């Protein structure tokens, strides 16, 4: 009976710790978080109702430091691009394989690369640090189009080195969590 109660207490504690993402485990996962956002666009093609994009993505860690660059491809719906009311977080984006073929009508990137006879171009806007943060599609075959914000293409992943460390993180959290539970009410009582 005593053993069963102890087991239940440990299970409840482990559940609590995991539900709170744990201090050590959570920060390990944060340290391994990788965030990708477009740096510059180099390919744009209209394929049916899709705009196919090829871009260089900047991979940063959770503190915003660059850790890599990657070549990425994605497709966005032209119907969605015509809408003016879609917030970035709700914009439908399909990430394609990095070697997905480019098909369709090729567009110019930037007005300066656009020749009068070409079907259209992406008018890009860059941030002071050089990242292309948005573009407007100018295409004689459709439109007008709303600005597309590059952060809609944000991808997150977890660096694989963290997984072997997670058991250690969980063990550290299990050991320290009861201490935190004791100090938490103290902080509430004396805190200003």
């Amino acid at each position, binding site marked *: 009976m005593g053993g069963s109660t102890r087991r*239940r*207490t440990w299970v*409840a504690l482990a*559940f*609590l710790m995991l*539900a*709170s*993402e744990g*201090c050590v485990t*959570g*920060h390990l*996962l*944060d340290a391994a978080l990788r*965030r990708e*956002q477009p740096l510059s666009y180099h390919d744009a093609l209209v394929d049916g109702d899709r705009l196919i994009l090829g871009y260089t993505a900047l991979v940063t860690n*959770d*503190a*915003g430091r660059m850790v890599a660059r990657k070549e990425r491809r994605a497709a966005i719906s032209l119907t969605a691009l015509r809408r003016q009311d*879609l*917030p*970035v*977080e709700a914009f439908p984006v399909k990430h394609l394989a990095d070697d997905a073929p480019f098909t369709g009508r090729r567009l110019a990137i930037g007005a300066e690369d656009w020749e009068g006879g070409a079907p259209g171009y992406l008018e890009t806007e860059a941030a002071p640090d050089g990242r292309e*943060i*948005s573009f407007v599609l100018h295409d004689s075959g459709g439109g007008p189009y709303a*600005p597309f*914000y*590059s*952060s*809609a*293409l*944000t991808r*997150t992943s977890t660096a694989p080195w963290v997984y072997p460390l997670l058991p250690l993180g969980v063990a550290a959290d299990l050991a320290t969590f009861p201490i*935190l*539970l004791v*100090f*938490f009410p103290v*902080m*509430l009582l*004396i*805190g*200003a």
Partner: protein
Amino acid sequence: MRGSRGATFQSMLPVLWLVAGCAVGSAPATPDRSPFRFPADTFAFANVTLMEYEIDPVTREVSSHPRGKPPEVTLQCGAMVRAARQFYSVARFDPSAPAADAQTYEHLVREVLDTDPRHPPNQRVVIPGYHDLRDLSGAQAPLVKAMLAGPWETYLQRGNWRMIFPFRPEQQERVAGQLLDGLARGWPPIVHVLRFPERTINHLVLVFDAEQSPAEIRFHVYDPNDAERPLELVFDRGARIFSYSATSFFPGGPVKAYEVYNGWLY
């Protein structure tokens, strides 16, 4: 057995609720107040970091060394933003009334600072002889500095317990919504910005305005370390992260943020 397990789980629920950081208080609105104004509703002096910082323009690495002379106002970012909001919600400045003596101002400032920092109180404290907090804290700087709480109020800010736990993107998205909600209710939120476990920034600021675009929410903040200009806390809607402006001690970039002086938990 099932009942016992259920009871164990139920008994843990309040703690889980606390630790998960989902508890959000809701301060009532202050409809009779005009929006918080920068610089009028801020202090004329700044909180100064204990160390002097140098930021490498290329690597953005930060190095520090002690200042020659310890600053007069330091480690008081929490005390200053808390007091700025108390003055905003409680004080009514009457520049047309004759200026009072130092003892009267001491009494009035004490009255303001003794109010509940988490809720707009019903009482009003009329401060004669000055246009606003900027005016008062410039003319009566020694008195106001002496009456602000010391660094302990920042160290022991009740919501500090939250900083050691991780912040996930969906939680940061909720914080952005919560800040907009506070502004809509006329109650400028106080925000803890940090990068724990890194020590590059661990700071309290007051949000007083916001501009929204489809890509981001640009919160305008009063940073007590900068009396000259408002800074920005920007929420990227796509990446669901906050970024803070470059300052004399922080090179600018991603931070975590959560509201404090909000409800009994924070």
